[in-house]
């Protein structure tokens, strides 16, 4: 079943992985029906949102070079997707790319950055370090995956992932944004991996 309204230019629906996740997510969202008028406005807003996602410039280590710098530079160029307005303040950012290892000393900092972002906010865990601790999993000072601290929307494996993989991840996030109900944003369904989505975090703390 193809979910409507999430067309990504130049990439076919079937070519994406994890379509089941999205379908399940949409089914959950539309369980009680959606007002057609509200639904249309929401779709329109989401079209705009998903094409102008502003990332926070945040990187702790190696993945930052491949995944922020290369993706931002000439060849991969995430400006094509409208993601190029990188923000230096979390208060203006929509998405945080967690690039690189998160260690014990950094964990509270990351959490605070996340909390400083305004809703709706998204998290992409880039690289095996952010996903699970990666090559440093056995270390005494490394957090075993950022989803222990903050909820994650998209995981991009690799050490480091290729810039193309990051672009793919960005498209996946854009698809997720497109199907959400803008008017009920903080209460998104909780399925599978997003089970610890923290809806109570105070956006201005």
């Amino acid at each position, binding site marked *: 079943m193809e979910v409507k309204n999430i067309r990504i230019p130049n990439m076919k629906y079937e070519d994406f992985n994890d379509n089941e996740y999205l379908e399940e997510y949409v089914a959950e969202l539309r369980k009680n029906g959606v007002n057609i008028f509200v639904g249309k406005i929401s779709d329109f807003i989401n079209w705009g949102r998903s094409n102008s996602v502003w990332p926070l*410039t*945040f*990187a*702790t*280590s*190696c993945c*930052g*070079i*491949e995944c922020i*710098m*290369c993706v931002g*530079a*000439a*060849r991969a160029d995430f400006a094509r997707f409208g993601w190029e307005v990188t923000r*230096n303040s*979390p208060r203006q950012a929509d998405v945080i790319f967690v690039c*690189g*290892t998160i*260690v*014990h*000393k*950094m*964990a*509270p*900092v990351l*959490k*605070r*950055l996340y909390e400083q972002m305004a809703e709706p906010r998204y998290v992409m865990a880039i690289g095996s370090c952010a996903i699970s601790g990666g*090559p*440093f999993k*056995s*270390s*005494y*000072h*490394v*957090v075993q995956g950022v989803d*222990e*601290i903050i909820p994650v929307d998209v995981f991009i494996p690799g*050490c*480091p992932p*290729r810039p193309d993989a990051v672009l793919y991840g960005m498209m996946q996030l854009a698809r997720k944004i497109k199907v959400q109900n803008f008017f009920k944003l903080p209460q998104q369904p909780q399925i599978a991996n997003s089970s610890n989505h923290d809806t109570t975090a105070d956006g201005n703390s």
Partner: protein
Amino acid sequence: MILQPMETVEKELLSLGLTEVKREDNRLTVTLPADKLYGVARYLRYDRPEKFDYLIDIVGMDYGDALGAAYHISPSQTPSLVVTLVTRTGNREQPELFSVCDLWDSASVYEREVYDFFGVRFINHPDMRRIFLRTDWNGFPLRKDYNADPAINPVPPENELISDMERAPSITIKMGERIEEVHQVFDDDEYVINFGPQHPAMHGVLHLRVALNGEIIKKIDPVFGYIHRGIEKICESYTYPQILHLTDRLDYLSGTMNRHAVCLCCEKALELEVPERAHYIRTIFDELTRIASHLLGWGCMCMDMGSITAFVYGMRDREKIMDVFEETAGGRLMANYSVIGGVARDIHPNFQKRVKEFIPYMRKMLKEHHLLFSNNPIARGRMKDIGYLSREKAISLGATGPSGRASGWSNDIRKIAPYAAYAKANFDEVLRTEGLTYDRYIIRLDEIEQSLRIIEQLVDNIPEGAYAAKTKAIIRLPEGEFFQRVENARGQFGVHITSKGDKTPYRVKFRSPSLVLVGALKAIATEAKVADLIMIGASLDYVIPCIDR
């Protein structure tokens, strides 16, 4: 008969009453009791004609029954000579050694590191705080009896309090009297601002606390550890081929060279004959990595001055190198290419062609970079006349690499102790004398040209033959201590391996060139304008994960 430098030093040390003086591969290892260390170090530092003015590294050690440290020192006049002073203390409860931080500026961070990892406190060190871990961390992780139970040190929910971070304990012994005190790094009436850990121009997660008077910087207190991954401890449980993968991820912009260092160290220990072909390939890879790293450093430095275009240009040229890497090694940033005994696989048939295409391209682009940026009056205005680092200070701080060479200190390991195929190539060590930000900027672009020269001479002459030597399935290093330095894009990268003959090392220590560069930042930027702080930092081009390891 004229004595060689090493024999002279050996004689002198013996005449000081030291008995355990051993000669190992170009290195003199002296084992001495803890109470003699300071005296001998002082003698070597000041009282002989050829002063040992460069402290390469301090390696903390846990010997099981004792804790200790090994000091690698070297004279800047005869840089190939290295003396290692080894000392130990049997007291594991309250281990103490005498500090040498008044002899070498770089000792102050190294000693803090030894304290952080092993709990050895240094007497007369003014600031015995932990360097990487939080003050509330329990235990000393690199000790052999460290309890790594995550319940003891869970992921902290809150940031450390600034007031805790700034309590600096110290022990001093003055005229036989022992004084233990705690003082605050900043006074209450100082105006302190934070740079980082999340700051767009900090090139990573470094945290600088800066005290200002108007716009003049009065004091800088760098806080490290936001990306401390505990690599040295992990290495102790990994086999040697596994360790290689971690070295790429230390200073990821010089990954290939760091890996080369560990390979060389292991090959030296195993007395393994590496095929010529592998040497050539490794050298070309190292130089390509150096170019990529300098391009990125250059781009970021320009971006910090507000020129996004330069950054995009730098990254564009870097992509060409990434393509070459990808074709041969399979990885882009992390080539994962050198292995013990050679390289992982043979070069791609296109390799030479691509590299040869790249050389004229890069030369043309270099001209353009100079035209667009180096000669731009605004850029020059921001780089000329700021950030002076003298030669003596650079040596005392251990600021190697382009940053030291910009001050006139010749410290290129490729020249001092040529490894791989460097002896076969004809190239210059670029030296400048003024030691300003502009010199540190321009020296990187000049080094790109030299790297191109090296590649040009080697790429057509890669000898035929095997690309790797045969090694045993399980690699065990013989018992002993091995030390190897290479020149990475930031300076001297060193590996110290202590082996007990097992398939895993007993202790691994990496000498990070970046760690001391932050010390240099502290020295240069004090009394500078706060607006120049970022420029000075960018000109030193440190990589934070290499600092924290």
